[in-house]
């Protein structure tokens, strides 16, 4: 096991102190990161003591280290999963050869692109969520938000470590640029569209952490397979944190549904009555689900992709659980049956498997999301209700790939994945996606609750607290005025 060094400015298990060049680069980046965090991190809570988990090593015990800490003083560190001895490149044209410990020159630019694209999502989500602390439904939820935020910050550190270690001057410049782009800013937007979408209420936050962080999970899983070993090790450790983000999202929505069920058993299922009673009606929850799932599905990229083929061929990005689930790791033979739009109908095209790798990964993602929705439906079932939430079809409401809405809205799908006319879309859009009125209603529910043990009326309390603490625990302490 690698030894964690917690004595320096930057906790790490990569023996940073013996690499003076890298140490200098990271130490000069650190104040810029803090500046970014102060400007774009959670607004209004930088002086609060937050009950946070900090990674101090990669084994189970060292990773679950809890204590109150002010966020700007959080010990963002660099931790890679322990190396696998004699690891081999698991797939692609070089399958079976020793994994690369340094960047192969011919793939340097491609790898940098992959890492930068992943890295950019980490600060982006912090930016998207920066105002949510001000309307948290409880201190418990507020703490979870901040935990997610600091860990996204640590993910940024992990990616910046790779950029600065392996990509020379270009990597250092990219590391700076990661702090310069801003989510939703037309002049310097984040790279991926989804990460420029506003996330302004807590239902959106829970949907985001359910669906968008889950994209993160699958991207990290695919990169954890990489023949570039440092990337693989970095992603493997990030995955442990990502699991918590999805937990926050999934249980968040679950508690919203729980509360809605409770209200419905008092006032009935009429949406207006549910809303009047201060809860979110199921139809609105479904619309939020549709919105965030469809936006997250885009993140996997085009269904037919020469980049995807190249990334697989060169051993840079694999499939979900490549080694465990597949026997053919070369994938030059198979094809993927992809329904594509031809005129006013869909017809199946055989896409070479390598070119369909984005879609292969998306399949696993969609399955995972189905399971999540199934668990949410258990809440409805346990309350003896007939209504169910559903996952919209992956073709619904897309902005990227084969099913993207054309320039003039010529390609539209309903939530079941059927091609529909532009007219039909316009007629039914408000049934499927949040309207301005829906957004305003949800926003209207967002009153902060900061008294320990109390919670807003639109969401049920969690079953248990964090790290065996009770729900009433003071997860966030505001400094005395």
């Amino acid at each position: 096991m690698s030894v964690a060094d917690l004595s320096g400015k930057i906790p790490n298990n990569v023996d940073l102190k013996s690499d003076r060049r890298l140490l200098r680069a990271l130490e000069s980046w650190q104040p810029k990161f803090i500046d970014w965090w102060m400007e774009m991190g959670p607004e209004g809570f930088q002086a609060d003591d937050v009950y946070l988990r900090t990674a101090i090593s990669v084994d189970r015990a060292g990773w679950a280290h809890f204590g109150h800490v002010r966020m700007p003083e959080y010990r963002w560190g660099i931790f890679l999963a322990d190396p696998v001895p004699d690891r081999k490149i698991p797939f692609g044209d070089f399958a079976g050869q020793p994994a690369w410990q340094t960047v192969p020159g011919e793939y340097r630019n491609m790898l940098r692109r992959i890492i930068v694209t992943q890295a950019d999502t980490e600060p982006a989500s912090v930016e998207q969520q920066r105002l949510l602390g001000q309307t948290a439904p409880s201190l418990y939820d507020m703490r979870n938000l901040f935990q997610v935020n600091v860990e996204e910050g640590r993910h940024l550190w992990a990616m910046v470590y790779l950029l600065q270690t392996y990509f020379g001057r270009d990597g250092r410049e990219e590391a700076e640029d990661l702090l310069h782009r801003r989510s939703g800013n037309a002049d310097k937007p984040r790279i991926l569209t989804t990460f420029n979408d506003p996330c302004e209420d807590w239902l959106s936050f829970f949907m985001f952490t359910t669906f968008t962080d889950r994209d993160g999970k699958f991207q990290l899983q695919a990169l954890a397979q990489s023949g570039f070993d440092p990337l693989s090790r970095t992603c493997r450790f990030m995955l442990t944190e990502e699991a918590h983000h999805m937990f926050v999202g999934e249980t968040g929505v679950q508690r919203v549904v729980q509360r809605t069920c409770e209200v419905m058993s008092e006032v009935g299922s009429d949406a207006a009555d549910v809303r009047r009673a201060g809860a979110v009606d199921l139809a609105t929850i479904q619309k939020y689900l549709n919105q965030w799932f469809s936006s997250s599905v885009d993140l996997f990229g085009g269904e037919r992709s020469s980049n995807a083929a190249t990334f697989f061929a060169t051993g840079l990005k694999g499939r979900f659980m490549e080694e465990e689930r597949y026997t053919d790791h070369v994938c030059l033979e198979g094809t993927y049956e992809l329904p594509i739009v031809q005129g006013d109908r869909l017809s199946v095209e055989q896409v070479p498997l390598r070119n369909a790798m984005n879609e292969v990964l998306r399949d696993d993602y969609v399955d995972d999301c189905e399971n999540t929705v199934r668990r949410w439906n258990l809440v409805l079932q346990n309350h003896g209700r007939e209504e169910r939430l559903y996952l919209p079809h992956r073709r619904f409401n897309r902005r990227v790939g084969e099913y993207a809405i054309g320039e003039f809205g010529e390609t539209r799908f309903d939530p079941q994945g059927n091609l529909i006319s532009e007219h039909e879309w316009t007629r039914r859009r408000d049934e499927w996606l949040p309207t301005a009125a829906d957004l305003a209603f949800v926003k209207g529910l967002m009153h902060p609750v900061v008294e320990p043990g109390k919670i807003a009326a639109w969401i049920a309390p969690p079953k248990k607290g964090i790290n065996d603490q009770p729900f009433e625990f003071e997860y966030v302490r505001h400094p005395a005025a």
Partner: protein
Amino acid sequence: MAESSAPQPEISFRAHPDHYVHWRLRIDGDVAHLTMNVQEDRPLRAGTVLKLNSYDLGVDIELADAYQRLRFEHPDVRCVVIDGALPRVFCAGANIPMLRSSSHSFKVNFCKFTNETRLYIEDASRHSGLRTLCAVNGTASGGGYELALAADWIILPDDGNTAVSFPEVPLLGVLPGTGGLTRLVDKRKVRRDLADVFSTLAEGIKGQRAEQWRLVDEVVAASQFAEAVERRARMLAEEAAALRPDREGPGVALPELVCDRSEPDLLRWKYVALRVDRERRIAELVVRGPDAAPTALDEIRAAGAEWWPLRCFRELDEALLHVRFNLLDVGLVVLRTEGDPDRIMLVDDALGEHTSDWFVSEVRRLVARVLRRLDLTARSLFAIVEPGNCFAGTLFELCLAADRVYMLDDTGLDDDERGVGNRVRLSEANAGTYPMSNGLSRLATHFLQDAALAEAALSHAGYFDAQEALAAGLVTFAPDDIDWEDEVRIALEERASLSPDALTGMEANLRFAGPETLETKIFARLSAWQNWIFQRPNAVGERGALTCYGQPLMPAFDWTRT
């Protein structure tokens, strides 16, 4: 994907803004907005999908048409703003699957045409003061950036995403062959080492660095992009107005040309006819002189598109493109003229006299451009000068463009047998009105050994008979009437029997003596290398980069360097 060998449907080069498929042209005072909006499901040849504003020949035909019409039909327009209709992508360059599935000769001719179009954009700026501003409102890769390079000014938004790039070498194993490499270092004076880095970096360069490296002229914040484009368009339009204050409306409409195709293997326009002898692989291009030759400006303007030099050379242009794209196995084009040479002299007088009139200047530029297209047509060109010809002045340029000139020597005949005799003549128009790609007149290039020879020919009073023309070095051979028919027949048959590839290379080397220009470098060095690379297994072999691009298999190179 294999090259298709099945006969392809004939390609038409006609276009009109009312029917553009891939471009939107909007004219707003002195600024025209030309928006690239490639319809992916409407390629010129079925079977490819024109994704991400990638272009095929059909897209470029419309672009060339747009510039031609702006020059003639909209003299008030002084700046063209080119942008793209897609979010995030300006133009992805030439469509790769289309290139991959095209025959070699199509690829070469496609590239040549697109090169001519970009040079035409620059010609419009230099001579008509029609400036082009490229608003790169999304990533411009490969041919997309090469299109931008033809503009006078390139603006890029600094949004952290939008880049200019040349992915050809790193991803496709070919060159940015539409003038890209040449314009980087010759036109934009990008430092050679930086150009080297840029040309191997698939993802390209964005933001401030693009400006620092001189790859673009202006980088602005995305939110100020539209405003900056408008401001710059105004500046360019005003600069252009000062350069050519004479350009003002009304314009001259260019009606669709009429071509009679009723006889097989014969295309007959009003002044140009093309007769194809498929058996012998020879085409005969006959240019007829004018029926009338007005010299007064108001008469010329009244004639408009019907004015002989304009109509005739538009027709010749269409005929040349037809030869290039639709008559692939015709190896030799015989050039002939018929008509009254005195009338050509009158046309040349008018062309020379009214240089301050924008319309007359536009016609001169058009004639010059069509003549360059003739120079660049990779077919053997033999001019045949017989009695009744009108190889005079402007039309003598056809002789000067030809690889050889055969002139029937009738000086031995009696005067009453001869009539006015077989004769040719020069005019001021041969002194530099129609420069070649090398920047020189055809006459100066022809007499590169001694400028005095050109001077002497120009100062020769009146017509040259065959003996005089031969002595002056204006024609290659002057057989007399006894030998004429046999000599010509044998010359044509011999020429048509030689290796077409060797002839293409030989002619291209002999035609462009003299200095190098951006244009000659593009057509000689860049295109020649590109055409070589296009044939090489490292590009188009089973594991070549072009073959493998977008396919599951990665390229595998033969590492031998030449």
